[in-house]
């Protein structure tokens, strides 16, 4: 499989009021192949969404890419013209947002909105666009698509709207789909349906997916590869199975410990085990030093860690890399 998206040493900074650029993302690298799913995992404020927006070239005004390259099929999108970028959005890369309740224009029918994307990217006429919109709604498993195509967003439930969003995102036949926490705002039952839908659609269309989430259950189910971000730095990456089953970085372990495990049995257990948490908070922007970003919260930190800089992301096996000074001890 060829590499579709390659992010190389991407750094993003926020320009403060004094002109100082505060790093938001540091030296992030990853690659996504066609038909595969890459998950970006981490707490809020770790730079997951910023990564997505940087790939879309839709970073908010004060944010700038300070270094690195983003290659889509070998084309550097950071240097693409605004016009080229417009045709890439929707067609090369598209994005699903977190909040389906607010991500659709309330004044137009869903058919209009999907149809518009179709008309930009494949130049079809109005009638043809409506037919294709119905087909897309059917593909995302919306019942009675012939009627729903004329519905306004407020007439649909959250799960339905997220399906519409997915239909809209797929309308331009993108090679890469960025899903920014696509299920966070939805019911648990609907979450599972949306993930199944994404997996099915990916199988048919061979679209690469960058899945941004903090739902590790979803990662285990959907993702092929994982990058765990902490405070704007990638601290563990690799094959999804390997990272989920043998997490090496203390942060990844902490995240996995935070997932509640349901124990089934005839009686309640003798002793209830507390759900783990990671004490402390992600260091705020501007408070990130040159040493290991996770140091202050790490239970495994040693004197060695305190005396050194942020460790490099180094492989421990063929398909698994960790950024930790004690990786060999912890992996054992």
């Amino acid at each position, binding site marked *: 499989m060829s590499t579709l998206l390659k992010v190389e040493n991407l750094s993003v900074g926020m320009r403060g009021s004094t002109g100082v650029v505060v790093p938001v993302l540091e030296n992030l690298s990853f690659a996504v192949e066609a038909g595969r799913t890459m998950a970006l995992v981490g707490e809020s404020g770790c730079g997951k969404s910023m990564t997505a927006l940087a790939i*879309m070239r839709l970073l908010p005004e004060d944010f700038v890419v300070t270094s690195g390259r983003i290659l889509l099929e070998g084309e550097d999108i950071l240097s693409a013209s605004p016009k080229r970028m417009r045709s890439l959005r929707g067609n090369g890369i*598209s994005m699903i947002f977190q909040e389906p309740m607010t991500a659709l224009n309330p004044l137009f029918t869903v058919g209009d909105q999907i149809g518009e994307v179709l008309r930009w990217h494949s130049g079809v006429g109005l009638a043809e666009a409506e037919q294709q919109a119905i087909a897309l709604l059917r593909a995302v498993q919306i*019942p*009675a698509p012939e009627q729903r195509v004329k519905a306004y967003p407020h007439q649909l439930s959250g799960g339905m709207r997220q399906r519409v969003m997915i239909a809209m995102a797929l309308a331009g036949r993108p090679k890469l789909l960025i899903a920014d926490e696509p299920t966070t705002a939805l019911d648990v039952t609907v979450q599972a349906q949306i993930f199944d839908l994404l997996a099915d659609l990916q199988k048919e269309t061979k679209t690469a997916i960058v899945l941004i989430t903090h739902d590790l259950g979803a990662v285990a189910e959907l993702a092929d590869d994982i990058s765990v971000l902490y405070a704007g730095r990638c601290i563990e990456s690799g094959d999804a199975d390997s990272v989920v089953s043998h997490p090496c970085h203390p942060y990844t372990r902490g995240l996995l410990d935070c997932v509640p495990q349901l124990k089934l049995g005839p009686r309640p257990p003798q002793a209830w085990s507390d759900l783990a948490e990671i004490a402390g908070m992600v260091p705020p922007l501007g408070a990130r030093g040159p040493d290991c970003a996770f140091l202050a919260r790490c239970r495994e930190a040693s004197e060695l860690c305190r005396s050194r800089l942020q460790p490099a992301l180094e492989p421990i096996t063929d398909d698994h890399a960790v950024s930790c000074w004690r990786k060999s001890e912890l992996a054992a």
Partner: protein
Amino acid sequence: MTTIETSTPLAVESSSPPVRPSASPGRVAFRQFLRSPSGVCGACLLILIVLGTAIGPVVYPVDPLDLVGGPFTAPSADAWLGTDYLGRDVLAGLIYGGRASLAVGAVAALITIAIGLTVGALSGFFGGAIDAALVKITEFFQILPPLLFAMVLVTLFGQKLTTITLAIGAVSWTSAARLTRAEFMRLRNLDFVKASRAAGAGDAYLILRVLLPNALPPVIVSATLAIGVAILFEGGLSFLGLGDPNTMSWGLMLGQNRNYVLDAWWAVIFPGAAIFLAVLSISLVGDGVNDAINPRLRRRM
């Protein structure tokens, strides 16, 4: 034997209620408007006034500039609302003057909104240097006293109805611009705008099809009210003697007869009442429109 349906792809969501034929936002707003008492009253009154000026000449065929009798004839069977200081018919003046006043109001409001929308939209959408420049221009127009500025414009370019209309538009667009700018700034960071951009929308599409329709509700309300303001403005200019002397209008009638109000009240009171009723009806309509398209306000009321 019953067969079990297995073809439904989604057990959870297929039970959701069937979609009703959906009403467009415009039709929903219209229905809501009909439920607002003030809006309906205002609309009825406004329709009466417009109808009066439209079919008035058929019922009451008198030329408003003709001298039909002696000056200051009290209302009688010949001149229903009396005559003014030159002996012109007041009712005929009201009918023809209403056409001018309403037309000036409507066109000036259109100009106001057109300039305001354009400046506000560009300013709010692009931000940065464009915004800074446009805000400076808006502020420049804002600090000029509007009536004085309009008087200067009319004096400079001649006392014609078109000049008066343009002058009113030129001095009153700033609030519409600020309103539109604020709406655009609020909207441009919303998810559906980002989503549209992410799907490949260009600037023109975002401004015209995504942001503008969503920014319109408050602007429509202010446009409605701008008609009333423009009518008052035209009245004010005419009252001060800067009206178009060749075209009868309510303000002109008021201005020319104001010195004789104690002797011939009818020549002043009737045009004054006409302006009052027209502006009142437009304000009521604006109220109704606001109720219809601003759901949050509606709840509170």
